């Protein structure tokens, strides 16, 4: 039976996390059907239809999906889901919010945050803040899975176009949340989880104003900005900058950690980066143990010098 991939999109484009999930889906050697739900899902659905592995796109359009709620999406997907062996979504806050609800109503387990698919019934997922990797299997009739996007390449678009089929929206008959507002931490910089360079700051910055030093470096490198929990808690940067066990997982080509000690909860979100640089005034900081290049010193001296000496790349 085919595989159903629940697409995450911004009402016009598929997210990078969805593209990574499309790559993960290939491991199941099953026909891939993508479901795109939204108030104006046409563009994202068209995009989905272009990927070579995709054989069909379900499009569910309703004004109530402008700010999709897990409650509505679950009711709508329940019947559709029963025709599939595998249901996949990215392990972003979108997927983490929706898939457990759907899995529970299908009476199956959810295999969350999968980083490796060994065969279509055997998966690897990190546990204990990534300090261990568990290989798990389930006998449930439908395997519902969330994919950690940083563990898979983004799928490349082909030039085929899969057929579309409309699927009705089914409003939940039980009491629903009402969307009030979204405060977006808007930024011109690349998206944190798919950026090829990430520069992250921690408590060592001491204040929100001092983060400007990191912004200057990010601008020079065309990098995204991340942060430790301590920096977010202190209000230096918005919540969605948090990298770690309970924040975002990132795996860029280059990760530069500045004024971050390297607690296991932080490492959980960045230690799969290709090259890690640590800048910290404490030579004993644990971050140095996993850094490819460590530089001991005061960030307030080092950052301006580093930023000045980098030739502009972006």
């Amino acid at each position, binding site marked *: 039976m085919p595989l159903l991939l629940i697409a995450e999109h911004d009402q016009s484009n598929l997210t990078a996390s969805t593209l990574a999930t499309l790559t993960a889906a290939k491991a199941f050697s099953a026909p891939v059907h993508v479901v795109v739900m939204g108030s104006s899902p046409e563009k994202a659905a068209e995009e989905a239809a272009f990927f070579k592995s995709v054989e069909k796109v379900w499009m569910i359009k309703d004004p109530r999906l402008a700010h999709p709620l897990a409650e509505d999406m679950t009711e709508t997907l329940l019947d559709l889901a029963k025709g599939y062996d595998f249901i996949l979504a990215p392990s972003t806050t979108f997927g983490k919010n929706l898939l457990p609800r759907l899995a529970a109503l299908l009476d199956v387990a959810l295999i969350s945050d999968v980083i490796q698919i060994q065969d279509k019934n055997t998966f690897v997922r990190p546990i204990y803040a990534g300090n261990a990797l568990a290989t798990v299997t389930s006998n449930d009739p439908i395997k519902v899975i969330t994919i950690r996007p940083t563990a898979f390449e983004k799928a490349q678009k082909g030039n085929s176009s899969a057929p579309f089929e409309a699927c009705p929206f089914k409003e939940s008959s039980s009491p629903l949340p009402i969307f009030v507002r979204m405060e977006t931490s808007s930024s011109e910089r690349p998206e944190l989880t798919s950026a090829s360079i990430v520069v992250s700051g921690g408590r060592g910055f001491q204040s929100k104003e001092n983060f400007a030093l990191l912004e200057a470096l990010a601008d020079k490198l065309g990098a995204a900005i991340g942060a430790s929990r301590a920096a977010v808690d202190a209000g230096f940067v*918005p919540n969605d900058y948090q990298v770690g066990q309970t924040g975002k997982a990132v795996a860029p080509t280059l990760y530069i950690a500045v004024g971050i000690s390297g607690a296991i909860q932080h490492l959980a979100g960045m*230690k799969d980066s290709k090259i890690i640089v640590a800048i910290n005034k404490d030579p004993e900081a644990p971050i140095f143990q996993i850094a490819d290049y460590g530089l001991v010193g005061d960030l307030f001296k080092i950052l301006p010098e580093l930023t000045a*000496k980098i030739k502009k790349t972006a």
Partner: protein
Amino acid sequence: MKVLVAVKRVVDYNVKVRVRADETGIDLSGVKMSLNPFDEIAVEEAVRLKEKGLASEIIVVSIGDASCQESLRTALALGADRAIHVETSLETQPLGVAKTLKALVEKESPRLIILGKQAIDDDFNQTGQMLAGLLRWPQGTFISHLIRNGEEIEVTREVDGGLETLKMPLPAVVTTDLRLNEPRYATLPNIMKAKQKSLEVISAETLGVDLTPRLKTLKVVEPPPRKGGLMVANVDELLDKLQHEAKVI
């Protein structure tokens, strides 16, 4: 309004766990255990609602072997009114826990259920959403703010793009994120008082819930180690390495 809070006993967040040599799991012998940090935040939020006169009774629940009673006593010392221990020797997984909590909801009729967003041992991040689904209640996940206005709550959710605010009618399920509150410490007098509070033990069988794990762990290994630790002397050396050795800028 009765509030139900689910708490799990987990390896303390400061412990760097070790994988057992036979690859069957984590070595738990002699390891410090604590209340899951997100569940501490859940208890704290319930206590604050009660202190504001917005909650009448706080019931804490834990599912597992006898050792979870220790976590329940901690929750009682933090201000919960009574505790229920659902006893099982089986490894608990989100679907089974959600079904157990649903059975208790039918007995206790809480108007608000607070769970942690994630247990820091298995890092599943599922149980609250599953429970909300089974009950077909509205869900407010990963919240950093909660206000109750009569028969409605307003929550702010920490999501990938920023902060999302939702309103929802009670009864509802919410899961806590780190910035919801800063939990208090249990004081000695409150730890003593907690010993007098009611802790009911129910077997999972009497609730008629099947807790058989759906996921089977085949093996647990350590992640491949990173070989880090190379130090550079100054910015020039760092840039040289990044350009010519690592070739990343």
